């Protein structure tokens, strides 16, 4: 049976709780500094708990996934079978396969941002809520990572670091509705790339109507002052161009060049630590 308390006292309590919530929300909205620090400390404190929980829950997760993600499990199984067959064939090819592997490694190394320190990081957690398009990697400020550093793969931009603790970082995906970065359609049309919340599409905004943009054109970071990231990181290719009536700007859909939703490892480019 629920504990009874007077309606007046209950109302006073909920009023106080609402007031505290609104105060905290206001502090977060005005300056994210203190809140970011609290979240960063929480990530750090919770990190070992997560590590232990990860191990404890591993067998449960297999059962859970087997029960609730049958489609994924079946798809993974089919994919692994196909990969296994392919690997068997490659092994038979001997040296040719070794050469192929070397070529693959070269292809996956980053062909851009060579002057910066790079930190390979494993993705350990995906989004924690329905309105987050973020993930957590197991590398943090101890590894030279700072706020705003880009997360990339050989194919292009994945996202950007928005929170850092000593051993973990939170990365906001390029597809998140909060994401924005200065971009250009190669060779020279500048605009702003923003996430749409739809995992498969980005939008290039602020492109004037008289600029020629074609489907298939490459889009990369512009590196313009205030754009947030260095120039030359591949973002995607133009998928659709629309004339947004009345706005004076084109509406350009861009398909990300990297598999933004499926990353297991990313490279964080430590922008403040250059390679000598």
């Amino acid at each position, binding site marked *: *049976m*629920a*504990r*009874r*308390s007077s309606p007046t*006292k*209950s109302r006073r*309590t*909920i009023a106080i*709780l*609402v007031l*505290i*919530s*609104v*105060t*905290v*929300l206001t*502090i*977060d*909205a005005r300056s994210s500094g203190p*809140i970011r620090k*609290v*979240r960063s400390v*929480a*990530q750090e404190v*919770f990190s070992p*708990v*997560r590590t232990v*929980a*990860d191990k404890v*829950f591993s067998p*449960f*997760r297999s059962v*859970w*996934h087997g029960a*609730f*993600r049958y489609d994924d499990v079946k798809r993974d199984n089919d994919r692994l079978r196909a990969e296994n067959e392919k690997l068997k064939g490659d092994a038979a090819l001997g040296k040719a396969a070794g050469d192929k592997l070397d070529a693959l490694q070269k292809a996956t190394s980053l062909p851009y941002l060579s002057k910066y320190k790079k930190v390979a990081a494993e993705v350990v*957690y*995906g*989004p*924690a*809520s*329905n*309105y*987050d398009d*973020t993930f957590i990697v197991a590398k943090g400020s101890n590894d030279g990572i700072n706020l705003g550093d880009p997360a990339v793969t050989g194919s292009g931009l994945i996202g950007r670091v*928005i*929170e850092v603790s000593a051993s973990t970082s*939170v990365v*906001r995906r390029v597809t998140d*509705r*909060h994401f924005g970065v200065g971009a250009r359609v190669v060779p020279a049309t500048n605009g702003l790339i923003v996430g749409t*919340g739809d995992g498969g599409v980005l939008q290039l905004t602020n492109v004037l109507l008289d600029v020629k943009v074609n489907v298939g054109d490459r889009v990369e970071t512009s590196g313009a002052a205030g754009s947030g990231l260095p120039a030359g990181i591949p973002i995607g290719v133009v998928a659709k161009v629309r004339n947004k009536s009345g706005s004076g700007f084109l509406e350009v859909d861009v398909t990300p060049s990297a598999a933004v939703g499926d990353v297991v490892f990313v490279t964080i480019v430590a922008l403040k630590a250059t390679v000598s």
Partner: protein
Amino acid sequence: MNDFAALVVRLAIVLLTTMIIQIELITRTTVFGVRGDLMLGVAAVVGVAVGAEMGAVIAFIAGLLSDLLVTTPFGLNALTYSLVAYGVGTFHRSLVRSGTFTVPMVTVLASAVGAAIFGLMLELLGSIHVLDGKFLRVVIVTALINGAFGGVLLRVLRWATPHDGGRMRA
């Protein structure tokens, strides 16, 4: 251990365990592209378990814990959860009698209201535009997932907050 210390320890165990289950299992699985929110389920049920006032306080703490691990505005989960628990507690107090399906139904309804409040407040705060097709999916799926866990959550919360006629037992 005195009553209050026992209550704090038990609640800490329940909230932290729920949070770990949320992170390790619930958020790693999507149903129609939606992740469940078990902590919202706790907020919905705690109002039934301990009443409006104490329920709102416990839900507020659960919300703050959730806020630590997401990137949405800090305090929004705390606000939503405490309103949900208060509403459920007040509603449940007014019920003359409750049947077998009362708790699952209250959990479903309260979770739907909570998910809707959260989305609407995100929109109002100008944080992001959330009122699209996914919003309705989030509300429905979150409510149904929490409804499935409602009975278990109530048992666990009653274990964590033991009391008898308004006076807590040790």
